[in-house]
C-alpha cells in the first residue's frame, strides 16, 4: 500500500518515509546552458533560486514533508567539489526550512555513473571510477542524507541485445553482468555511507527498463517486451539491498513495487507526475505502492505561474494530499484500486506494475537463488501475468504484441538452467562490448 512500508526509515531533518504518509520528492535540473568554469556561478544561482522557491512553496502548500533530489550532471561528478557545493546549497535551504517552518525534509543526492565514458566501460578502476567515489564521499560530507545512483553495469550489452530482440543477450546483461557490477558497486557505496553516516538509498534500472519503455513508446519494441524487461530488471536492482541498501529506491526505478514487496523498504515512484521528464503508459498505476511521489526532473525555466519546478511541486503536493487523506479516512484500498484499474487495462507495462502483478513477480524471484535464475523467473512470471490477463479478457493485445508474447515465452523457456550454459556463446557474441575484468570474470 502507498505510504506504508514494513521497514520505514527516518532521515535528514526528521523525514519519516513509509511510516504512513506519502511525501513529494522534488527533482529539477538546469535549463539549456553550458556547464563549465565560466557558467559555474550562474549554475549555483539556479540551485540557490530553487532552494528559495522550495522554502516558499513548502509554506504556501502546507507541505507535511518533503524529499529533495539533486541529480548530479556529469561534470559535477567528475569534479567532486562542484557536486558537493550544490549539495551544500540545497542542504542549507532544507535546514532553514526545517528551522523556520518545521518542515520534515531530507536531501537525496545522485552522482552520475560516469564509468561508461570509456567503451567497453571500465567499472572497477580507472579515472572515472575514482572520480565517482570521490563524488559520493564529498556529497555525503556536504550534507546528503541519502545517496543513490543509476548504475550502468551490463547496459553496454543490454542496449545491443534489446535492439536485436536477443533474449539470451538481455538475460546475460540483466542476470549475469549487471548483478555482478551491482554487488561490487554497492558494497563500496554501503561502506562509504556507513563511514559518513548517510543512508544508502537504492539503484535504478533506468538504463535498462526505461530505455526499453522509451523504445516501445517510439514503436521500436513491443510493449510486452518492455514489460518483461521491467520485471527482469528488478533482480539487478535488488542486489543493492542484498549489499545493505535500505532505500528509499530511486523514483525512476519503476521496478520499485517489486523491490518493496521483497525487502519491505520504502520506495520513490513517478508517473503522470513526471510528464515533464518523459511520457509513460503507467501514469496512475505507478503510484499504487509509492512512499515518495516524484516528478523525475524538470528544467528550472519560467512558466506562467512561476518556475517549472514549483509548478510540479504543487502537483506533487496535491497528489500526496489524496494519498494521505485516503489513508486517514480508511479508503486507501478504494483509491489504490482506482489508480491501478485506470491503467492496467490499457497497457501490459501498466499491468506488470499492479500490486498483484508485482507481488507475483516478487515471489517468483524469491523462489530462486542465483541472479541468473531469478532474472529468468521474473521474466517468465511477467509473461504469465500478461497471458492470464489476456485470457481473462482484462487486457487486449494487438495481434503483433500477442505474437511477441508467445515468442518471448518460447525464448525464455529455451534458456539453459544455469548461466554457465550461456557464458561461452555470449562472450563470443558480445565480447567486443564488455571487458570481463569489469565483472570479475
Amino acid at each position: 500500500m502507498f505510504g506504508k512500508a514494513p521497514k520505514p526509515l527516518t532521515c535528514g531533518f526528521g523525514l519519516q518515509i513509509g511510516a504512513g504518509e506519502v511525501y513529494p520528492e522534488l527533482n529539477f535540473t538546469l535549463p539549456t546552458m553550458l556547464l563549465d568554469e565560466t557558467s559555474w556561478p550562474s549554475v549555483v544561482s539556479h540551485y540557490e533560486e530553487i532552494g528559495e522557491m522550495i522554502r516558499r512553496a513548502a509554506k504556501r502548500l502546507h507541505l507535511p514533508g518533503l524529499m529533495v533530489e539533486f541529480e548530479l550532471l556529469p561534470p559535477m561528478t567528475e569534479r567532486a567539489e562542484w557536486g558537493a557545493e550544490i549539495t551544500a546549497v540545497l542542504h542549507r535551504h532544507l535546514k532553514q526550512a526545517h528551522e523556520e517552518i518545521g518542515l520534515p525534509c531530507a536531501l537525496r543526492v545522485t552522482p552520475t555513473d560516469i564509468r561508461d565514458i570509456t567503451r567497453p566501460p571500465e567499472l572497477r578502476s580507472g579515472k572515472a571510477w575514482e572520480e565517482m567515489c570521490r563524488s559520493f564521499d564529498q556529497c555525503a560530507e556536504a550534507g546528503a542524507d541519502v545517496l543513490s545512483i543509476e548504475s550502468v553495469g551490463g547496459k553496454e550489452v543490454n542496449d545491443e541485445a534489446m535492439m536485436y530482440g536477443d533474449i539470451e543477450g538481455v538475460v546475460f546483461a540483466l542476470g549475469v553482468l549487471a548483478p555482478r557490477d551491482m554487488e561490487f558497486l554497492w558494497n563500496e557505496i554501503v561502506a562509504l555511507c556507513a563511514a559518513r553516516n548517510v543512508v544508502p538509498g537504492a539503484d535504478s534500472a533506468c538504463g535498462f527498463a526505461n530505455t526499453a519503455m522509451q523504445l516501445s513508446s517510439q514503436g521500436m519494441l513491443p510493449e510486452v517486451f518492455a514489460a518483461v524487461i521491467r520485471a527482469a530488471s528488478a533482480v539487478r536492482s535488488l542486489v543493492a539491498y542484498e549489499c545493505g541498501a535500505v532505500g528509499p529506491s530511486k523514483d525512476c526505478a519503476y521496478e520499485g513495487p517489486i523491490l518493496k514487496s521483497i525487502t519491505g523498504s520504502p520506495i520513490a515512484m513517478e508517473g503522470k507526475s513526471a510528464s515533464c521528464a518523459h511520457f509513460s503508459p503507467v501514469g496512475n498505476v505507478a503510484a499504487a505502492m509509492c512512499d515518495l511521489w516524484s516528478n523525475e526532473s524538470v528544467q528550472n525555466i519560467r512558466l506562467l505561474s512561476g518556475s517549472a519546478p514549483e509548478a510540479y511541486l504543487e502537483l506533487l503536493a496535491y497528489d500526496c494530499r489524496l494519498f494521505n487523506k485516503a489513508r486517514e479516512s480508511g479508503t486507501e484500498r478504494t483509491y489504490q484500486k482506482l489508480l491501478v484499474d485506470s491503467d492496467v487495462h490499457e497497457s501490459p507495462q501498466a499491468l506488470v506494475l499492479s500490486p498483484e502483478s508485482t507481488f507475483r513477480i516478487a515471489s517468483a524471484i524469491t523462489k530462486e537463488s542465483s541472479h541468473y535464475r531469478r532474472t529468468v523467473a521474473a521474466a517468465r512470471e511477467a509473461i504469465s501475468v500478461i497471458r492470464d490477463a489476456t485470457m481473462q479478457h482484462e487486457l487486449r493485445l494487438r495481434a503483433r504484441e500477442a505474437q511477441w508474447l508467445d515468442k518471448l515465452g518460447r525464448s525464455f523457456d529455451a534458456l539453459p538452467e544455469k548461466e554457465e550454459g550461456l557464458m561461452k556463446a555470449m562472450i563470443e557474441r558480445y565480447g567486443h562490448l564488455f571487458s570481463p575484468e569489469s565483472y570479475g570474470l
Partner: protein
Amino acid sequence: MNELHELAQLLEQGQRQRVAALTQELLGKGVGPQTILNEGLIAGMAVVGEKMRGGEMYLPEVLQAASAMHASLGILKPHLLRAGAKPLGRILMGTVKGDMHDIGKNLVGIMLQGAGFEIVDLGLNVPPQKFIEAINAHSPSIVGMSAMLTTTMLNMKTTIDAIAAAGLRSNVKVIVGGAPVSQKFADEIGADGYARDAVLAVDKVKQLLDTAAWSMPTERLTD
C-alpha cells in the same frame, strides 16, 4: 514477375540466406540488377516500412530484413555500378562532448544503415575536434549529432561553429536530435535538420540529400 515478389517476401521475413540465393538465381536468369533492386528489395523494404509504422513490425524484425537486404545488395553492387547507379552518401554519427546517452544515436545509425547509408560512428562524448578530423578522414555528406542533456546540447552549436571555422561547413549537412532538442533549437544553432525519432531521421536525411538509385523508398518507409 512473381519471383521478384517472392524475393520481396523473403526479404520481409528477414531470410538472409534465401534472399542472397534468389538474388544470384535472378541475375543468372538475366534479370537486370535495377529491376531486382526496385521490384524486389525496394518493394520488400517498402512493406517493412509500412508495417513498422503500423506497429506490425518492430526494430528486431526490421534489422533482420535490413541485413537480408544488405546481403542481396552486396551481390548486386558490382552489377549496379556497371549499370551506372551510385551508392548513397556516408553519414557521420556521434553523441556530443559530455554526453554518454548513446542508444538514441545508435538507433538512428542502425536505421540509416538499414536505409542503405554508410555509417561512421564516432561513439559518445565526442569533442568538436574529433568531428572535424572525421570529416576530413571520411568526407561524409551528413554529420549527425546527438545530445540528451540540456547541458550538452549547446555543444552541438560549438561543434557546428568549429566545423565552420575549419572551413568544412559547406561540405556537410548537419542534423541533430535528442530528448531536449527541438526544431526551434536546431534552427537557432544553424543545423540543417532535426528529427524526433530514428524513423523520421531517415526521412530527414533522404530529404537533405535527395538520394538516388540504391535508396529504399523511405518516403514510403515512413509515411
